[in-house]
């Protein structure tokens, strides 16, 4: 529970044609993470899955785009048998997906076209009044003059001035008659004779010609009616295009589900193909497997490809340890805590997984800092009853229960201190005792964190660091010797010979270790050792004092409640209870959040930074993903 699962480095030999079935079997066990082959590339020069992989990427890309268009509920369809996918099947599927996407893309292009048409008609309608201001025969806009080239269109407003100046060079004029959403609707006019040049210029400017309706002449009302007809036609066409797209999607729905499942089954082989090497009919791949899943892997392979495989395994060598992935297994209810630990990092392969200790200390410290029976109960209820908080349910229930337990110890219910007699003490009645308790808690926490560091160093083979470093045996002995010395001095007993020896022995070991691990010129070495020794002492003191916040927040909680009651006292009877309720809600939300952050800070900074590197790599086995999620 406290360490990642032991892993084995396996080498799997299969017949080349069995590779897709073997990949699927490996994915079904979710116990094999392929890695770069150990076997020399010149012995196994071929990459047998490259074409499969390329086609998979192409098909996967197309499928993903198509699935974005249609919302498929895969649970409504039966799951097909888990058969391996051959290269030929994949090629066919890729081609079919290509055709399907082509057809759907055509519908989308139609949609875009009619959408633009609708926008143009809407713009024309809006600008009809402005057209009238042009004070010209509107029919001219359509047919132009005998010697006059007239055009109506739109372009980006930002480009209007430059285009007007450019047109001026060609003897044209430009007039803006309507502006909307960054687009200017313009009329341009100039002498005929250079239409081709003008067209190229307009294309450079992203000019969009507005088609003027045949009836765009005469009185405004018939024109308006005509434009409305055009708009309606465009909207009808848009609706038809939309319907055609829907129909096409409906038509493809069932084949798409089949395609998604096929891609799901093809994905493991495509992923395995990255590491699969071959020579002739033999294919080989290496991978990490949890030691306790070897048998399951054999069983799955035997079922998929009978006895046509050979699998050997061995424990990772010392040099391979940094590359070994970590597989941590925690109970389901620990998931919210695991997420918070992984937020900091993944444990190294042979490093202690801090999740259980984190869960325990997180819950305990939350209770210590936010002890209240009533508010703790509300947190429990929120965890149980609010669906949106379901992902953090175990954390909320545990934190709420802890809050209730400490509320009982402090005798606090929604801030009322007279309802329940404290089992231990009410925080504000004896602050010194609270602070002392917090200090002892901090010392225990630091001791545990340092012991874990020592353990991690030992299993990583860093004996000297485990014994003599600042976060090793020497460091923790120095820490407790300093505490002991401080206690003796504080109580007037003097330092004494034993206490002095207790201080100097670990300090000497620490300095000696620092001296050895920092080669360099003498002055630099002296400076580094002096600074680092000082920093070690300072860190231990600062880390310990950091835990005073545990007591501070428990008192802060009571103080906030006192403030709420003081405000409530100033109100009438209705106002009194409203203030009490709102004040409690305020404390619950705001202080609850602050306390949670402070606890996380203590865990990460005072705990994890001491013993947990968190730079490991999570175990990512071949697995069957959900259909439609087959992208590698």
């Amino acid at each position, binding site marked *: 529970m406290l360490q990642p699962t032991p892993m084995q480095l396996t080498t799997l030999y299969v017949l080349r044609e069995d590779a897709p079935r073997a990949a699927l079997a490996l994915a079904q066990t979710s116990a094999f993470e392929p890695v770069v082959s150990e076997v020399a590339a010149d012995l196994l020069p071929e990459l047998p899955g490259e074409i499969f992989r390329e086609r998979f990427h192409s098909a996967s*890309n*197309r499928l993903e*785009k198509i699935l974005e268009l249609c919302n498929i509920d895969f649970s409504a369809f039966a799951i097909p048998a888990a058969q391996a996918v051959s290269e030929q099947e994949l090629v066919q599927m890729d081609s079919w997906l*290509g055709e399907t*996407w*082509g057809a759907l*893309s055509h519908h*989308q*292009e139609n949609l*875009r076209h009619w959408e633009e048409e609708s926008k143009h008609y809407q713009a024309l309608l809006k600008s009809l009044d402005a057209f009238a201001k042009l004070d010209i025969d509107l029919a001219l806009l359509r047919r132009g003059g005998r010697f006059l080239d007239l055009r109506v269109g739109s372009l*980006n407003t930002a480009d209007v*001035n*430059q*285009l007007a*100046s*450019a*047109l*001026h*060079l*060609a003897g*044209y004029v430009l007039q803006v008659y309507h502006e909307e959403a960054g687009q200017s609707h313009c009329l341009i006019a100039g002498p005929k004779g*250079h239409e081709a*040049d*003008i*067209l*190229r*210029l307009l*294309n*450079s*400017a*992203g*000019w*969009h010609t507005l088609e003027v309706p045949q009836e765009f002449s005469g009185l405004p009302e018939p024109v308006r009616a005509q434009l409305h007809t055009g708009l309606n036609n465009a909207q009808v066409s848009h609706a038809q295009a939309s319907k055609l797209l829907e129909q096409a999607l409906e038509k493809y729905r069932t084949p798409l589900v089949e395609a998604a499942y096929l891609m799901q089954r093809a994905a493991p082989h495509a992923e395995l193909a990255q590491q699969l090497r071959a020579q002739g009919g033999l294919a080989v791949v290496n991978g990490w497997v949890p030691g306790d899943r070897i048998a399951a892997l054999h069983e799955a392979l035997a079922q998929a490809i009978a006895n046509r495989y050979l699998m050997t395994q061995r424990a990772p060598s010392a040099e391979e340890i940094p590359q070994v992935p970590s597989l941590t297994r925690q109970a389901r209810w620990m998931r919210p805590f695991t997420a918070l630990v992984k937020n900091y990092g993944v444990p190294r392969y042979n490093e202690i997984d801090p999740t259980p200790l984190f869960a325990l200390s997180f819950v305990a410290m939350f209770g210590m800092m936010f002890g209240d029976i009533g508010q703790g109960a509300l947190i429990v209820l929120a965890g149980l009853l609010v669906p949106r908080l379901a992902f953090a349910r175990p954390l909320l229930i545990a934190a709420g229960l802890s809050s209730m337990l400490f509320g009982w110890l402090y005798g606090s219910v929604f801030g009322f201190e007279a309802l329940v007699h404290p089992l231990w003490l009410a925080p504000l009645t004896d602050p010194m005792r609270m602070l002392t308790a917090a200090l002892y808690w901090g010392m225990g926490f630091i001791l545990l964190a340092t012991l874990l560091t020592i353990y991690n160093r030992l299993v990583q083979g860093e004996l000297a660091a485990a014994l003599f470093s600042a976060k090793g045996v020497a460091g923790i002995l120095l820490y407790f010797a300093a505490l002991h010395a401080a206690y003796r001095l504080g109580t007037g007993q003097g330092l004494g010979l034993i206490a002095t020896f207790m201080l100097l022995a670990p300090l000497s070991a620490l300095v000696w270790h620092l001296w050895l691990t920092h080669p360099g010129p003498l002055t630099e070495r002296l400076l580094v050792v002096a600074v680092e020794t000082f920093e070690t002492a300072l860190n231990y003191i600062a880390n310990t004092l950091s835990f005073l916040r545990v007591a501070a927040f428990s008192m802060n909680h009571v103080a906030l409640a006192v403030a709420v009651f003081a405000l409530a006292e100033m109100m009438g009877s209705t106002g009194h209870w409203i203030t009490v309720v709102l004040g409690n809600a305020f404390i619950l939300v705001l202080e609850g959040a602050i306390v949670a952050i402070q606890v996380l800070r203590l865990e990460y900074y005072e705990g994890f930074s001491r013993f947990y590197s968190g730079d490991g790599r999570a175990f990512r086995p071949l697995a069957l993903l959900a259909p439609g999620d087959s992208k590698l």
Partner: protein
Amino acid sequence: MSSRNEAYLHARVSIMMRRLLSPAQIETMLTQAAAESAEIAGSARLQGLLAQVSELNAYAPQPFALEQRIVSSVLDDCEILARPLSGLERDFLIHWVHRLELSNLKAILRGKLAGRSMQDIRADLLDAGSFTTLPLEQLLRTEDFSELLRLLADTSFADIARQARAAFETERDLFAVDATVDRRYFNGLRERALRIEARQGPLFRELIHSIINRVNLVWLLRYRFVYMLPPAQTFYLLIPSTSRLNTERLAALARLESFDDVLAALPQPLQAQMAGLNNTFEVTQHLEHGTYQAAHKVLQSAPHALARAFAYLVMREYDLRKVRAVAKSRQLQLGPEVVRYTLALAPEHTH
């Protein structure tokens, strides 16, 4: 920018400017053995760049990795220099290197129009690191040009999508799109520079004018006399400007019918500088040299840190181009005189 950040940026630029190459160093790289060149490249933080190229076959295609190294080097510098900046100043500096990403957009547009595969197009894309704003993967995954334009219409490049569609539907020609991308970029640079130039001083303004003038004059000559575009279209594709080569002057120049007429009608001192030049390439070289000089002046004399940081980036890019030219000349076993001509390194510049 706070005085603390201003001081930080000044210090950073002063440290970085030591990496800039002198003409004498370029000449040494051109003429001396690989060891000396490597030493100079090392001092310019370009270790391995020359070696990387010299290992290649002379007839190998252009080493893409070399381009990526150069781009990465500029991006790394910009990332450091942009750190203390915020608001308009940061926006300006980031926009300057954003140009590198636009080459990716052009590559995708061209690749898709030519029907190249996703892998082939991806191989031509430069990694703009944290400066990437385009949804490259999504754009690459499109199956045809229409789908690409539909996707692009949902990004901040919607105006380019609109023009690309017009170009695609009428002529299936991407010249207008390329020109629009470039025009949009330099227009953006000009607008951003306008917002901050009051604070950055006259030397900074001169540098920006030098860049915009160079772009405008080279484009004008190229569009009018190489692509044979009509005056109106040529003028439309230029950047509005308020410098000596202002919008009105550009309109007048666009009307002229020959290369020599354009050079003769330039305002002073440009006219004197361009006298005797025979083609657009030589004009480009001279104008680039002018921009380099303007940047050098800013770097040495400008009191404002952002102006100096920008000038450093301008000069650094020129330096990297010079190193690239030297590297390529080695790869193709060309003589130093070819590189000198290409980079407008007259022998007198080297002393």
